[in-house]
């Protein structure tokens, strides 16, 4: 396998120059680095710090992501080579960030959601490079790198101070459990990316995806507007009691909602932006006219931009601000923590639309640049064959540790339950594949779904569902 992958070299296309993106990304990276350097020099802080390393990693991961995606759009093989280099540099910076934190705290960075994301991003980047070398699948970075970027940005919102370990975490099993968890999650991310590549190579109809994606995104925004739109264009969000870290309650089962002015209109526009592609698809289907689909695809692109703007506005206005409530006098604080479902819905919508746009990369030239659909299918299966035992080990180690700490190896805590659900989903995948011969498309859907569940277990459960895994 490896030898074969090494033999196959990328051939430089003579016709396509394709330097524009390279120059652009290169300049951006240099610019951001210089700005950051100046900032550090001005503040007089030390250059060697975890946050600086992480920032460098972020810049290079973002550059790599842009180049990988550029490859997907233009099919310029040179992009991939530079993207790999950028990923490697990002990985080195990421490793330094991990090392610095490890050195400062005297323990591996496994003890909070911030630290786990740090390790997770590291594992994702490392596995991306590994998969490129080992399987010759050179553009999975176009999925894993944006994921890494999102994770690093998310980390900026989380408390990052090095805290001493609470008694429950002082165990060797912490290291075993979290190492296995991060490795298995990163492997699942890889399998999801490979499955996406498979769908690009596979000749299924993109219209179906257009319909499903735009229907889902429309549903998300319609639901938000229907339940949260207030008079005069406001958006109601739950009030947040920062001291008790809980929603503000008016009475039994009644949360206090505050109204963020004008945000409602934005969500209205976002909903419209989500519905347009769906309508175009439906019209195109009714009239049996393919040209509507092309317009719908453009509309998806525009709606992603819209949704990004709305997400940005939401984050800026809801984070640490106070607004009046229609139910009670006075101003009440809001927080992103109080609206996990809104945030989760928006981020999911953007990701789903992005994944759909990726499918449109399917072109004859890209088909030659990617491994065959058959190989991608097999490699997806192989990564899951690695991820599944790791998941099993993670759950077993967690159970053993829980038994030493809480006195019971299984307590149906949300995190445990979702880990079990993840395990069951992948077990289902393996059974369908091995005994029912599920190959190709259905297996790819399953792999993508599986990673969706993994992300929910990793991040969703932490923010949406309370439980024993409070520190993670």
């Amino acid at each position, binding site marked *: *396998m490896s030898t*074969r*992958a090494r033999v*196959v070299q*990328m*051939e*430089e*296309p003579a*016709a*396509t120059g394709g330097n524009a993106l390279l120059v652009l990304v290169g300049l951006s990276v240099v610019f951001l680095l210089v700005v950051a350097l100046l900032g550090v020099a001005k503040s007089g802080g030390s250059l060697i710090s975890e946050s600086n390393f992480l920032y460098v990693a972020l810049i290079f991961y973002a550059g790599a992501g842009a180049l990988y995606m550029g490859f997907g759009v233009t099919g310029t*093989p040179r992009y991939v080579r530079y993207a790999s280099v950028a990923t490697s540099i990002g990985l080195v910076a990421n490793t330094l960030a991990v090392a610095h934190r490890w050195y400062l705290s005297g323990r591996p960075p496994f003890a909070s959601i911030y630290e786990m994301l740090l390790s997770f991003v590291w594992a994702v980047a490392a596995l991306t490079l590994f998969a490129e070398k080992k*399987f*010759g699948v*050179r553009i999975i970075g176009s999925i894993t790198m944006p994921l890494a970027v999102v994770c690093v940005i998310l980390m900026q919102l989380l408390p990052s101070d090095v*805290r*001493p370990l*609470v*008694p429950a975490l*002082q*165990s060797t099993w912490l290291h075993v459990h979290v190492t296995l968890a991060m490795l298995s999650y990163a492997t699942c991310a890889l399998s999801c990316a490979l499955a996406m590549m498979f769908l690009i190579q596979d000749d299924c109809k993109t219209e179906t995806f257009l319909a499903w994606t735009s229907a889902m995104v429309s549903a998300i925004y319609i639901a938000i507007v229907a339940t949260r739109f207030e008079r005069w264009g406001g958006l109601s969000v739950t009030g947040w009691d920062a001291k008790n870290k809980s929603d503000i309650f008016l009475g*039994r*089962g009644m949360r206090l909602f505050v109204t963020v002015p004008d945000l409602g209109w934005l969500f209205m526009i976002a909903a419209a932006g989500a519905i347009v592609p769906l309508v175009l698809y439906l019209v195109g289907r009714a009239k049996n006219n393919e040209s509507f689909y092309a317009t719908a695809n453009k509309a998806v692109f525009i709606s992603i931009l819209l949704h990004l703007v709305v997400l940005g506005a939401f984050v800026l206005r809801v984070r640490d601000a106070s607004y009046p409530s229609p139910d009670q006098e006075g101003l009440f604080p809001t927080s992103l923590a109080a609206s996990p479902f809104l945030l989760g819905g928006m981020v999911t919508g953007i990701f789903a639309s992005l994944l759909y746009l990726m499918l449109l990369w399917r072109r004859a030239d890209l088909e*030659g*640049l990617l*491994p*065959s659909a*058959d*190989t991608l299918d*097999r490699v997806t299966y*192989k990564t899951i064959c*690695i991820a*599944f*035992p790791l998941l*099993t*080990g993670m759950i*077993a180690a967690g*159970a*053993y540790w829980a*038994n*030493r*700490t809480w*006195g*019971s*190896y299984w307590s*149906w*805590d*949300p995190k445990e*339950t*979702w880990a*079990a*659900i993840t395990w*069951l989903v992948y*077990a*289902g995948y393996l*059974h*369908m594949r091995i*005994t*029912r011969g599920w190959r190709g498309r259905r297996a790819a859907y399953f792999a993508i779904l599986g990673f969706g569940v993994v992300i929910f277990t990793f991040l969703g459960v932490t923010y949406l*569902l309370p*439980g024993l895994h409070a520190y993670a």
Partner: protein
Amino acid sequence: MAFSLSSIAKRIHKTLANLRTGIVLLILVVIASALGTFVLQRPVTEADKLARAYSPNTLRWLDRLTLTDVFHAWWFLALLGLVSLSILLVSIDRFPNAWRFYARPYRKTDSHFRAALPNKVELPIRNSEDGLNAAERALKKLGWPVERIADKSEPSLYSERHRFSVMAVYIVHASLFLIFAGGIIDGLFGYSGFLMLQKGESGNVIELRTGARKRLPFAIKCYGAGQENYADGSPKRWWSKLAVVQDGKEIQTKEIVVNDPLVHQGLRFYQASYGPTGKLDGLKLLATPDGGTAREITLQADQPFDLDPNTSVTLAEYIPDFFIRDNQVFKRSDDPVNPAFRLQVKNKATGEDAKLWLFPAYGETAQGQKTNYSFAYRDMQMGYFTGLEVSHEPGQWLVWAGCLLMGAGLFVAFYMVHMRLWIVAVPDAKGKLVLWIGGQANKNRDRFEQKFNDVVATIQFELKGTSVAARPARKEEAELTLAGVK
């Protein structure tokens, strides 16, 4: 048509022993578990939090549908039982075939099989004996075990590796049953509870999760407990010095910390919590007799302290956080932030009782009208308890055994490949004698192709001099190509 009992049983068996049924049941388990994480669960949620989160009507319905305790609901357990049964039946149904395959390997090929096999190569040879000998030498060199299949018309070799890997899936499923068995044993015979001890106290009655009490055959004595903090004030370590006392003798002592329990007779005692009891351990006062010198005394609740041969003082009441209304003292909360103490001073000579309040927040001294002592507050020590989680899980060893077995089973199932090689000396399509080499692997086929090619190359090397280059019977599939745009 009458349904006999056996036909119904057969039908149920047929339904359950179906992979599709199993998958449907698994999906149901997934949905139910997910529900159980979205709805707050009674066993792990405080009652008032539950009451705040749902309106009374919603809560009533959730309770009625047992959605507030999904994981202990009968229907959830029944679902788990059905899934296990389904896995068991599917495994039993499939086992005989797999066993046949395992016990009686397909050693001797026929022409149909040879035609259908994807991985095959034909090497021209002069005579079958030399060819097979060369192949045997090559295989031995590469570490393959070789079996000669005696057959007059078609002498052949058979070689295989890791045949047991075809049984790995049954090992994995068996390990699942070990884990289930452990869980069931713990569900039936295990119990867990709570034991709260203060320093110097010993106890042998634990409060079970169900609210019932259980008497242990031995007692646990607490020699002390404490908390150590980091510099920033967050807890670093909770510890309790415990001893097991049976029949008046100390059998075992251990200082337990979080993550390191005490184990005795299958019972485990975990450091679960530590905190103030809300009760006073000691009250330090400065007692001054009229015209005399002050001295420091320490009062324990309800224990009279003799100030002089005629006078004793008792701490009659302690209110951790008080307020006064209508000249009466009430309790506001259990936090010891604004304490009040009621002292009872008894004069043994006159038999007179004097009750006086001491409010450290209002001023430190309290002086009764009928006593000749005044008291000043100095300090108070709160009592601390250590909370021990007690659990008895006789099935846990089955669970761990199951986990280990599953690890081994998954390793074999995913990473051990059952590889088979058949080598026959037969005439090819044109009637020329060739050494037909075929191979098959049950997984990781591309890796096997390389191994197969190695085997062929080595056999060729051994045949050297007697044959010409190999003719691949199947075109090499060029995969993993990442050739540039042409």
